[in-house]
């Protein structure tokens, strides 16, 4: 997939050093030849065209760019793509199975956990990291786990309900 990203550089500048990275994204091995300063969020978006990872604040406060890095939630806007070399990344595009939604996705729709949708991918991935570790969280535990992700539309109450809805469904499965 490196070719896609190189499209951006119409006249590749020979002086700029690049590095080859191999990253497992949503289960698929992806290879890219990149500048070392490229941020992971930008590689995912522009390079791999996985637009579900949003960049909101550039300072790792808002969490719109949250992805799972070897299963842990990280802010991909403040991580260099080269740091992901040899690691596994899960984005929102990797949440759903081939035919059905992840219970967290269903929960967000069912409990009206989103409005403009911009924070939603990051919120859902932060929620997944929580539920992977703690399948039966309290409301306070959900609120704490999501406190690295900002939302301006919902006031969080329905986001918390969405995550609890998903926890219940996942436990029943």
């Amino acid at each position, binding site marked *: 997939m490196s070719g896609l990203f190189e499209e951006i*550089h119409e006249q590749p500048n020979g002086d700029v050093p690049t590095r080859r990275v191999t990253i497992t994204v949503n289960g698929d091995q992806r290879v890219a030849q990149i500048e070392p300063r490229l941020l992971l969020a930008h590689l995912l978006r522009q390079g791999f065209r996985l637009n*579900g990872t949003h960049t909101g604040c550039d300072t790792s406060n808002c969490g719109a760019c949250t992805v799972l890095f070897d299963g842990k939630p990280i802010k991909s806007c403040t991580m260099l793509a080269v740091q992901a070399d040899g690691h596994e990344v899960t*984005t929102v595009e990797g949440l759903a199975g081939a035919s059905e939604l992840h219970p967290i996705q269903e929960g967000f729709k069912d409990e009206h956990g989103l409005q403009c949708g911009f924070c939603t991918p990051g919120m859902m991935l932060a929620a997944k990291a929580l539920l992977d570790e703690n399948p039966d969280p309290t409301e306070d535990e959900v609120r704490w786990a999501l406190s690295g992700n900002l939302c*301006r539309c919902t006031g969080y109450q329905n986001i918390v309900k969405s995550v609890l809805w998903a926890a219940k469904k996942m436990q029943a499965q």
Partner: protein
Amino acid sequence: MGREEDAGTVGELSQTGVSKVTTQARDEIKIGGLGASRKRVEDNRFIRGKGNYVDDIVLPGMLHMEILRSPLAHARIVSIDTSKAWAIPGVRLVLTGEMMATRNLAWMPTLSYDTQAVLATDKVRFQGQEVACVIADDPYIAKDACEAIVVEYEALPVIVNPTQAMAEGAPLIRDDKENQQDNVIFDWEVGDRDGTERAFAQADLVSTLELHYPRSHPSPMECCGSIADFNRSTSKLTVYMTTQAPHIIRAAVALVAELPEHMIRIVSPDLGGGFGNKVPVYPGYVMSILASILLERPVKWIEDKTGNLISTGFARDIYLRGEMALRKDGKILGVRMHTDSDHGAFFSDAQPSKFKIGLMHSAFSCYDIPSAHLTARGVYTNKAPGGVAYRCSFRVTEAMFFQERMVQAAADDLGLDQAEFRRRNFVRDDDFPHRTPFGFLTDSGQYGKCLDVGLQAIGYEDFLKQKEEAKQRGRLLGIGISTMTEPLGAGNSREYDILGIKMFDSAELRVHMTGKAILRTGAKTQGQGHETTWAQIVAHELGIPAEDVVVEEGDTDTAPFGMGTYASRSTPVAGAAVAMVSRKVRAKARKLAAHLLEVSEEDIEWELGRFYVRSAPDNGVTIQDCAFAAYSNMPDGMEPGLENVAYYDPPNLTWPFACYIATVEVDPQTGVWDVLRVVAVDDCGVRINPMVVEGQIMGGLTEAYAMASMQFITFDAQGNCIGSNYMDYLLPTAWETPGYELHEVVTPCPHHPIGAKGIGECATVGGPAAFVNAVLDAIKDSGVRNIDMPLLPDRVYEALTQRHDVSGAPPVKMDDQ
């Protein structure tokens, strides 16, 4: 929430004639009509990460633009050297003010009849102002090149508040304007000066209050951005951009860039929130357009968060003072208000033209006050321009905050219970239509009932006892009330326009042969859920299931002309247009039904989704039958097809009302306050989708809590913006944000076709005063009358321990100064 009892809610409305019978309402819930908490259709793409925001759009050959901003708040530009930037491989264009000026684009008109610099030519007037921009092959190169531009500045004295702006000998900020002798933008007044004088002469007691509503930023999660794509071969300019009002932008681009309007297509794709921030025209949009015209390639500009916070439409930043004439039995006789508003370097508010300080004069509309008078002055300062309606109908947030703080202060001065004082002064339910002291006409309200529902929910009497008991143990509990009504949904067009363009809205409905339909409106959703709720109005009016109606907005080539979505005007205006266009379509369908049933039109009755013969109710045809006939079996002489368009000019604003109550506990050792409970009682008339309404209320309450507790942007004496990123500009997370208890009162709007009113902003407008009143109530014994928002712990602690009011007006003193 797909609740069965919703059917009851709608059924109740039959008494007002808005809806029909309960059985119809039940059927209607099934097809996703009015009152159904229908799950949102837009969610299907958002939860998969498949939204289509501006930054997600990639066009072939697209270049990237970055903006170089001024580090100084007020400075003359001595020189700009761009040579090093041009030398960087991959740089395609470097634009400066001088180059923009050769194309007459260095300045642009604002939405308030002022001008604003696109790129600075003479001097910079606020920190973060656009000085140059670079277009390059990728955003990293563009950023490198911006850093390679050398600008020499000569610093000038800086103004950061109205007092400095109006001081004698103050430096002139807008020396570019020929007739501008000082820093005053406008002096404006409304109300009855003499009548108010007389009211004050009769007063037993005069209460006063003075406060600063701090500068805030709407700060949607997604920043602003655009992709301009000028095609030389067709002469067509397409701009994908973050705008809440695409048609206004098209008009502005036609005027500024002098391009023919039919050759401009503005597309507003999915928006990551707006809250008023995405109404104005920003320099970045204009630069990307010029760059695309010059380079004949698509040019993408995506703002970073700092750029968004320091240069785009801020909100509030206004000094309010006022006094209330009171009779000792608790009756309000009159109100005087004065506002000094800080508009930054350019007057670029997006306000209705006639009202210089927005709808500030909607203050005190829910109270029966014989006379009132408001004077307002706006000034330039060396701060970013804006004054946008941040989740607010043109300054009503400031109006209602001042109102409810003033009412609280007056109740305290009179020694009256705050709920009782409100009750004694409310406009009575049977006193509508009511002319407010500043001249608005309110048409409906049940303010007393709304307050009572709130008091009962919070357990008012019990809490007062609990508060007293806690006091004995040294704990500080407080309760704050805010009751208000606000004008939402501008126009009517007689009184409301922006730059002369009347504030109506529109909807276009096309029913296909198989009874499925597409609806387009002049509004633009940013998270409000129009794709879901507009279809519900069509379902209500036509009986076509909501899932059979696709909604499309934001493309000026296809959508009918409308003024866009802000100021809670979507449902009051565009939503009404959806109902009206559906009725037009139904009128034609009735003719088709008569033809199919072989009876005259007069013999036909309508029930949800079906026409039938009055004398033989079993003999009927569905709306889908009529749609099919419109393409396959129309009567002789009838124009084929089943579609129409409606432009809706509302007869009045809608007047939702609400009661917000918060209880808090203040820690006397630290000044930290915790919210114990929040009760919200909203009346937005008929609720199209209760789930969506409740979502909006909770979002609004959170912005209210944010402003009361942490969210503000301030400046030091040099004009440095404090709050230029999310490390300094604090927004509440899930952890701090309180839980909410929602209640409702339903008073259908008498003039809206489906009885609905605006709701998106009510809680943001009315909420802040509830929190602030609660904290001040908790520390009442200290004699403190006001602490400016946000009520940061150090401010509360200072008030408690020093027993004086605490101002939050800039400039702030920084530790290192």
